[in-house]
């Protein structure tokens, strides 16, 4: 386990990471695994909805621009589904217009992070904050 990320997440934390840019996704996933999380990586909106219901993660990191179903649509479906509506979803995107952030929060996102302005460690900190606040 990586010394920087050690202890950030409670043992057994499950994370679903939805990101169509495989390189970016792999970097975040690598850090999450190093932090001791059980990570399920998905690069498609439709599969993400089913995976979230199936895995019941402690937190979802969700990109917005995805092939097929957009991140906003995935978020809406997750929040409408009784089985998944309590799962916190953090939007992670390089879109960052006021209207995008407002739409995300209105749909029930726990936070909206702009990838370009953050490091992977900061993203993990935000995810850990959300997971720990639910405990």
């Amino acid at each position: 386990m990586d010394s920087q990320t050690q202890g950030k997440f409670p043992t057994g934390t499950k994370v679903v990471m939805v990101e169509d840019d495989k390189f970016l996704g792999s970097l975040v996933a690598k850090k999450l695994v190093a932090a001791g999380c059980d990570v399920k990586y998905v690069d498609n909106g439709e599969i993400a909805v089913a995976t979230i219901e199936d895995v019941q993660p402690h937190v979802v990191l969700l990109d917005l621009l995805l092939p097929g179903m957009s991140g906003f649509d995935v978020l809406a479906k997750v929040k409408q589904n009784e089985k998944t509506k309590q799962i916190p979803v953090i939007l992670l995107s390089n879109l960052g217009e006021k209207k995008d952030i407002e739409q995300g929060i209105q749909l029930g996102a726990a936070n909206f992070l702009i990838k370009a302005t953050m490091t992977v460690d900061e993203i993990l900190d935000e995810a850990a904050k959300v997971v720990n606040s639910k405990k």
Partner: protein
Amino acid sequence: MNQQKTETILIKNKKDLVVRLSVALVAAGVVAILFFEFGFYKQHLETMLVILGILVVFYIDMFFVKKNILREITTSSAEEKSLILDVKEQVMNLDQKKAEFVSLAIHQLRAPLTGIRWALKMIIDGEVGEVTSEQKNMLVKTYEASMKSLTMLNELINIDRVDASKLLYDFKDENIIPIIQSAIDSVSLQAQDNKIILNFNQPQGTLPFVKIDKEKIVTAIENLLENSIKYTIGRGIVTISVKEDSGFLDVSIKDNGIGIPLKDQSNVFKKFFRAHNALEMRMQGSGVGLFMIKNIVEKHGGKCWFESEENVGTTFHVSLPVA
């Protein structure tokens, strides 16, 4: 109001037509006299042909001006109103399309930079294996360059946003105090790192509201504060004050920093301009901040100006009309 404007345009065009007609008639008269009375064409045939050519162009141009005026005259005021509304709607649609395009372009430009930064940071931190100190130095410089590119990209995005039509501004009646406080909060860490004290002189009584786009004014004040912090080296003081003055709220940001040299003062609000002393001290910046701030403030019907003395300090003022 719209009808008045249209009438003004018509009157202007009518005058234009009269002037053109008069000039054309006088010119035609002169040509005719030269041609028939003095037999001028015999010696200067080429010159005469050029003059005739110019007159033909003149008449064709006039024909179209007349046609346009007639079209405008036959347009009823209701149609004029609907035309103006159509144009307004088209401008708004264009602005919207431009905003969508820029938003997508931002995303596409940010994505590769994000990957570069994230990967470099992990390599620098030794998360994917040991790196030598020489390699680390080079990687750190590359990481800093990627950060600089990102900052430049964000600043260019901001320019585009403030260049956008006023129609895209979301004006609301707001209390300026929490807006200033929010800008101060967002730069407080930067001030702490630079050992700068931030003082906010709040007014005694209550101030009237201002009609503003909150997000844009926060951006403008944040940028002014960041400048003051950046250009005040070591243990400086930045004082923020606000007062009401003849129907305007005047927000001032005073520092005891490096100041702006007199020879550069007339250029500071120009896009991409950077003062000589800032360049000599190799301070990072793109020179778009003040251009952006002035643009934002003026879209609110306000003013932005400064007083500065090199090596003494600078005070920037933003004045916004009371709602």
